[in-house]
């Protein structure tokens, strides 16, 4: 099958959507499909062989984070050329209702379109303002996928209709097979906690964990907090109380290998996010690596943890409850062991083998419908000339 995937964000910057597109493309290529990805980027930049850059991206504030997107006539021309050259059987757009190359591709293509919605925060005002413009475009999407129930309910409330939920894929084997590192390894007297994410983005919730640390240290004085993620380390360190500062190590931006080793080593992975998360891929990675998960009770996180939850949850932004949950986990070896077993089992549902099969089923269903629609259109015009076209 010839598949054209459009990613609205540049591969130069790490991000959930980009990783999803990369892994999906590589999975389908390995299965023998022809895949081309259109994404922002420079012609002369370094990028995978299947990626076609559509020009330099500009930073735009969107959905609470800075997103690098690209817009304008040059991008539109390149998008059309990519569609012509690719002659795709199916065009798969990601985040189609952002001001991006995905929207341009949706406008330009005449092929069956599948779209994946990642975000749980569509700008409702922008959506309403642009609705007469967007609505006919959105009607061209034959199959809608949402990566979580949270993303699906956003689609339902903002665009009407429905979407099928197919979760983000994770290379679970990569995390399951990771080896622990002695320096990060937790021990009963010196447990280690991991935090992953931008340290200066409030919705990632480092401040909640920092507040909880005081209480956690009171119960387990040997606890160490390992913080992995980009951002201003000095400023973040200054915000910590002296005791917490002494117990905290900032690792900066870590590689995928380091991340998997960290998650395999620690006594618990803490996800204190306060909102804006539509999925929670790190939770799946942590579960696959066998780290007990302590997470805030965001809808998306609860969905990822499953029923019964393969982790411990606490009320969003409640530092006291977070501290209690962590202390309970550190005190209760049986709970910890149970989560270490339940995690990898739950994570298997998000493995790329499972997820890509489901996405391929969407492609096939949409293609079948599109072929029938084409055949029907000819007949409908012939038999129902009354319809004024």
């Amino acid at each position, binding site marked *: 099958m010839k598949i054209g995937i459009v990613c609205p964000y540049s591969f130069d910057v790490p991000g959930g959507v980009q990783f999803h597109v990369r892994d999906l493309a590589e999975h389908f290529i390995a299965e023998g499909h022809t895949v081309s990805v259109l994404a922002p980027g420079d012609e002369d930049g370094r990028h995978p062989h299947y990626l076609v850059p559509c020009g330099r991206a500009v930073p735009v504030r969107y959905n609470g984070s800075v997103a690098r997107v690209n817009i304008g006539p040059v991008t539109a021309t390149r998008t059309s050329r990519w569609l012509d050259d690719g002659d795709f059987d199916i065009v798969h757009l990601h985040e189609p209702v952002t001001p991006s190359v995905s929207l341009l591709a949706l406008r330009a293509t005449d092929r069956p379109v599948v779209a994946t919605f990642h975000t749980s925060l569509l700008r409702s005002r922008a959506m309403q303002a642009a609705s007469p413009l967007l609505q006919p475009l959105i009607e061209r999407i034959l199959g*809608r996928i949402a990566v979580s129930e949270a993303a699906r309910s956003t689609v339902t409330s903002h665009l009407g209709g429905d979407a099928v939920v197919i979760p983000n894929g994770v290379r679970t084997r990569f995390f399951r097979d990771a080896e622990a590192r002695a320096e990060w390894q937790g021990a009963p007297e010196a447990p280690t906690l991991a935090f992953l994410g931008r340290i200066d983005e409030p919705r990632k919730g480092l401040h909640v964990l920092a507040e909880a640390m005081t209480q956690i240290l009171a119960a387990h004085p040997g606890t160490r907090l390992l913080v992995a993620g980009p951002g201003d380390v000095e400023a973040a360190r200054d915000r910590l109380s002296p005791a917490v500062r002494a117990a905290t190590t900032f690792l900066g931006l870590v590689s995928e290998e380091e991340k998997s080793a960290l998650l395999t080593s620690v006594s618990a992975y803490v996800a204190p996010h306060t909102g804006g998360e539509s999925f929670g891929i790190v939770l799946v990675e942590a579960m696959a690596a066998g780290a007990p998960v302590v997470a805030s009770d965001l809808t998306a996180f609860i969905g990822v943890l499953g029923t019964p939850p393969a982790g411990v949850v606490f009320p969003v932004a409640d530092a006291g409850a977070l501290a209690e949950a962590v202390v309970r986990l550190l005190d209760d070896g049986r709970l910890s062991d149970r989560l270490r077993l339940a995690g990898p089992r739950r994570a298997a549902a998000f493995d790329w083998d499972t997820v890509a099969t489901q996405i391929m089923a969407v492609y096939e269903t*949409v293609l079948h419908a599109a072929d*029938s629609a084409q055949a029907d259109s000819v007949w409908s015009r012939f038999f129902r000339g009354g319809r004024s076209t």
Partner: protein
Amino acid sequence: MSGLAWVVLLVVVLAVGWYLTYSAARLDRLHARAEGALTALDAQLVRRAEATLELANSGELDAASSLILAAAASESLERQTEHLVDGDLLDGVHFGGRESVESDLTAALTTALTPDVVAQVRAAGQIGAADLERIEAAAIRVQLARRFHNNAVTDVRRVREKGVVRLFRLAGHAPLPETVEFDDTVPGVRR
């Protein structure tokens, strides 16, 4: 009337004409999309019923389960055949009130294919295992096709409610499509 007034009138007439043509084409595309989606749903339902019938006849299930499955699958296939005969083109494509039959087949599958039975048939590795796989694949696609169809119907109905479409009868004689609602749970899956 002055020359300018004529020009303005001409522009307005052209704009209205363009808008009507555009709306009619959009509506036609939406109707085709809904009908295409229904055809896809129909095809997957046939596959689900055929695979179920094969599993029932494979002799790998107990006699009672086999009978329940065979009855429900035959019912579904029979209705589908009837539908093909009377689904004349003037009437458009419609689901023909088969919801209850398909819900019954889903219920029969859920009853017969408990996780334990599924594991047992899979372990046997006979023809039944292949049938199970086909049933599951078709059942997943039934879910997808039904969602996509209902989305298309929602879009058609929204556009058809617009004043312009109603006033100029842009929908012609095309029947108003309806969403298809039935239980399409995939059998034998622990969730």
